[in-house]
């Protein structure tokens, strides 16, 4: 028995002349929030379609919620999956309530619980209006409400925050966090690297159908060549001793009296230790870890060099 919610074993997908996925393996345990990052066409949507059993892999095996995604029994497993496709357009003539009722019935869930879902995504006021009158953000929220029908154990969200304003994005991540705390597994794809960084437990990067990175933010930083930044403010007239800067990749004295030291993640602590040991008291130290964008840019460079 596989206890992972998602388990991909060397999965490949070949379209006519395009290799959309190349031997991707992935195991996602319960209640984890995973971000799938990569360019357009990197294979994110293909991966999600495979997990939904919408397409067959050309190689490897896809097991989701304990059932093989291409198997006959997977239809029933879909009842426990919530999916939000990218850029969805619901029929204009239907009201929000009608749209959600339709999807709840298909999942054999009582429509009486839909009012709570509208509440949750902040659409309660507009639920009885026609979808045609909705703004883009409201449509996206309706899409999210649809994905939440029936307390899914797995949520697959394709660009869940595209078209949403910042406060709404926060709300969406709030909902995702709450679901994960209640035991649901969430896999979301995104381009907004800065935005997802604090909101997920794990990041998986795809480039041209290959998995090129997989880990927690801390783990990715350790493995990455991306540099952390240490910003040091010195009292007036003091200079940073060269000894403190051994192993630093670079340093730069900025106009405002701050010296920025760039270093590999593994050198961060040794440099900090030396800095703090300096007798000339530091006025301030700030450590800025490499961001997901930095790490991803590093991965891209590495892949292009191959």
């Amino acid at each position: 028995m596989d206890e992972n919610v998602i388990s991909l074993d060397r999965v490949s997908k070949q379209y006519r002349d395009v290799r959309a996925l190349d031997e991707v393996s992935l195991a996602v345990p319960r209640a984890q929030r995973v971000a799938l990052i990569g360019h357009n066409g990197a294979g994110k949507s293909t991966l999600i379609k495979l997990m939904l059993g919408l397409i067959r892999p050309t190689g490897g095996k896809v097991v989701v919620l304990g059932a093989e995604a291409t198997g006959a029994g997977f239809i029933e497993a879909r009842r426990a999956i919530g999916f939000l496709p990218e850029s969805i357009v619901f029929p204009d003539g239907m009201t929000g309530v009608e749209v959600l009722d339709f999807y709840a019935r298909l999942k054999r869930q009582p429509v009486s619980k839909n009012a709570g879902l509208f509440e949750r995504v902040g659409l309660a006021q507009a639920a009885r209006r026609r979808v045609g009158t909705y703004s883009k953000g409201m449509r996206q929220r309706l899409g999210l409400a649809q994905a939440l029908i029936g307390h899914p154990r797995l949520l697959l969200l394709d660009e869940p925050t595209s078209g949403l304003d910042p406060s709404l994005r926060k709300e969406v991540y709030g909902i995702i966090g709450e679901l994960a705390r209640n035991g649901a597994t969430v896999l979301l794809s995104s381009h907004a690297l800065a935005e997802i960084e604090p909101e997920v437990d794990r990041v998986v990067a795809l480039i041209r159908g290959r998995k090129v990175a997989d880990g927690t933010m801390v783990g990715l930083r350790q493995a990455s060549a991306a540099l952390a930044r240490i910003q040091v403010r010195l009292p007036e007239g003091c200079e940073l001793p060269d000894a403190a800067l051994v192993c630093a990749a670079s340093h730069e004295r900025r106009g405002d009296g701050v010296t920025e030291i760039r270093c590999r993640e593994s050198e961060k602590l040794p440099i900090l230790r030396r800095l703090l040991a300096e007798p000339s008291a530091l006025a301030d130290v700030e450590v800025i870890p490499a961001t997901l964008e930095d790490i991803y840019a590093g991965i891209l460079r590495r892949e292009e060099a191959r």
Partner: protein
Amino acid sequence: MIRSVWIIAVREMRDGFRNRRVVASTLLLAALALTLSLIGSAPVGELGASRLSVAVVSLSSLTTFLIPLIALIIAHDAIAGEFDRGTMLLLLSYPVRRWQIIAGKFLGHVGILTIAIIIGYGLAALAMGLTAAPQESASRLAFLNLLGTSVMLAAAFLALGYCVSVVAQSQRAAAGAAIGIWLFFVILYDIALLGLLVVDDGRMVTVGLFNLLLLANPADIYRMLNLAGLPDIGRLSGMAGIARDVTLSPAALAGALLAWICVPLLFASVAFSRRQV
């Protein structure tokens, strides 16, 4: 299993009412039917064949053109359009089988068109019933026959529409193919057939082959069922000459029309199951 089909069928019907499809089709059918039946009865005069019979002739000619067009307009968008809008991917992620989606949409669309046909032609019949003398039962039967076969004709072209909608890569491509299907079956096929008969002059085209050629077009089957079915009506329409040669029983014709519904529907289901999403 059946519940999913029903849920989708109800959604399609509701959607049809919402986007005025039902209202538009009904009004179009009713307006044209009324016009045709009122004008069409004038040359016959009071002593000619029953007015309802005349109405059946003109209505069935109208139906052969209009119903396939309306059915194809609705059906060509059913799968390809939903893929374009992104809702098909979502629907497929639900616990629904692909044949259930086709079956549900088919039931919903047949429902929409049945309502449009019954109300549209019913209004025309009512209007005539009010102005005409009591009808003979044969005419009434012909009218019921007209309603039933019109629904079947609609169903056949809906099924053909799903075929192009499933195979097409976009809604636009599906629309083009649907127009092609309409042109072929409704306009070009009969012209080609008549041309063949004139040129051939009874040498190659035997009665058997001619019957087969008629069965190869659902619109012709429909015409045969309505125009050649009753002697009175057969004489009223230009089909009388041809109808003499048709040796097929109404049951065989109805069976063939049913096959024109089931086979494309089956093809659409299988092709949909194999379609890459």
